[in-house]
């Protein structure tokens, strides 16, 4: 018999529900985006995100079940993002999941949001361990080593801004409309890397990242140019900034992949949609032993299918959350992984 997992995700500004079959096949995947609402504020306003979630959640669930042509009776477990994320936003999903699981006597599974981003790739291709995941988004920049299902070892992470955050901040400096990250990528396609922005390599052998210095360098460069009465093309600023971010991401991922002899390299999270990053990764890993994989763009941004995919593994490993499951905005990935054992 097939296994059906319902996933729920409300950690930021997408209200999402999905049903997946046997851990790997999407049956329905519904996302209600709030981008239009947050645009006017130039970023996500947490309280407004939470308000939208509570208005949208039953609509999203209904659409999910209609598309799947299934009912709660068919569902084996309810998986929900318990963290990290915005606490008020997470709470809507967590309490919704508890209500569904309780009303139908189904197991409840708490899922780490980053585990979801990594498992996005399993909806396309089965994992081959050990594997390395580079998770890059507005909230995360992490290199994660997986030796088996449900095991996550963070070998590198950002010490300040997430890569996506740096994109958004630079976009704001360039006065690009929200969300600015993808627009920088777009501009960069038409620009030249004419400014040599710094690359933060940190200590020898470190897989950690740092993007706050780069962000300041961009702001200073623009400011100094303005004082000299000069002007750079926006496209060139974007291309130069992107070249710096991408080089560090690619190089560190490549070294980590070599050092740990991984069979697969997965690039996941919202920034995995970045064309510049995709191209540079593909060039670097061409002909290498580790297979490079990008989940489809629709699965890179936040959605609930990826939460259900990670939830399916946790479910099969015997993980069960209690009725006291809470939102955990600072949920630690490694501790979460140990709990799954």
């Amino acid at each position: 018999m097939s296994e059906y997992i319902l996933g729920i995700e409300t950690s930021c500004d997408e209200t999402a529900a999905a049903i997946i079959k046997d851990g790997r096949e999407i049956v329905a995947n519904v996302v209600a985006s709030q981008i239009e609402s947050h645009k006017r504020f130039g970023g996500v306003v947490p309280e407004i995100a939470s308000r939208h979630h509570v208005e949208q959640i039953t609509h999203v669930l209904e659409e999910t079940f209609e598309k799947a042509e299934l009912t709660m009776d068919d569902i084996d477990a309810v998986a929900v993002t318990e963290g990290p994320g915005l606490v008020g936003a997470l709470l809507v999903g967590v309490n919704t999941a508890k209500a569904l699981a309780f009303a139908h006597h189904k197991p409840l599974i708490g899922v780490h949001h980053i585990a979801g981003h990594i498992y996005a790739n399993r909806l396309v291709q089965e994992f081959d361990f050990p594997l390395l995941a580079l998770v890059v988004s507005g909230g995360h920049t992490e290199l994660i080593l997986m030796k088996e299902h449900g095991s996550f070892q963070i070998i590198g992470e950002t010490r300040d801004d997430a890569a996506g955050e740096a994109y958004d901040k630079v976009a704001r400096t360039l006065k690009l409309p929200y969300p600015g990250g993808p627009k920088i990528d777009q501009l960069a396609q038409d620009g030249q890397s004419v400014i040599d922005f710094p690359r933060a390599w940190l200590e020898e052998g470190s897989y950690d990242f740092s993007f706050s210095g780069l962000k300041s360098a961009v702001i200073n460069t623009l400011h100094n140019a303005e004082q000299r009465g000069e002007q750079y093309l926006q496209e060139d600023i974007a291309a130069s900034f992107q070249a710096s971010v991408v080089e560090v991401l690619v190089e560190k991922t490549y070294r980590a992949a070599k050092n740990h002899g991984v069979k697969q390299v997965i690039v996941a999270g919202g920034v995995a949609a970045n064309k510049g990053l995709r191209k540079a990764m593909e060039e670097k890993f061409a002909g290498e032993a580790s297979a490079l994989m990008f989940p489809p763009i629709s699965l890179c941004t936040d959605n609930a299918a990826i939460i259900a995919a990670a939830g399916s593994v946790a479910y099969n490993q015997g993980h069960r959350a209690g009725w006291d499951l809470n939102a955990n905005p600072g949920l630690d990935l490694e501790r979460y992984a140990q709990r799954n054992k």
Partner: protein
Amino acid sequence: MNILAIDTSNQVMGVAIYKDGQVLAEYTTNMKRNHSIGLMPAIDHIMKETDMKPDQLDRIAVAKGPGSYTGVRIGLSTAKTMAWTLNIPIVALSSLELVAYNGFGFAKYICPFFDARRGLVYTGLYEQTDSHLAVRKEEQNISFEAWLGQLNEMEESILFLSQDVELHRSMIVSILGEKAVFPSVDQFHLPKAGILASLAADRDHELTHEITPNYLRLVEAEANWLKEQERKRNE
């Protein structure tokens, strides 16, 4: 009719089971704690105690605020989802109205309020009729001093019900004098999920998808944005 009532809109967390015209069980905590942790274990407990299965429920009742934004959403996410997935009606009541019913039968005018910081309160004025409480002054988020000034224009005495009453008692008395009445037992200030359940038995239900929290206040960013739009229009 079997009803599960849920209130997590303020410091008190309450759940109750109503069956065959009476409240079978009521569970209340009055502590500063995270309702997201406590709510579902409380529901699980009270359902077991009353031998009630989710599919035997006919109706869900929920207090929709005003109150803690997060608290209100914990209750509404749970209640809306249960009503939707069990395909049963949901009745959402104002959290102020719920507290006002603690004074039903004891006073003609009842003013429930919740402290909203910086001199503001969420409040409204209820008036007793033969069968129920009617809204005499709409619920609002207002400076308590201004509100008490409005109430002082009335002749009759008013019963004040609020868990935050001690914070404001001296101001209430200084403005309204003898017209201000307080219950002699503190318990009357606390919302009761059992009352919520009983009230919900006779109320019209709403469309589950359409129920939204009764925040009584815009998000600050949104209020500022609206002001900015207004300013631009007038330029």
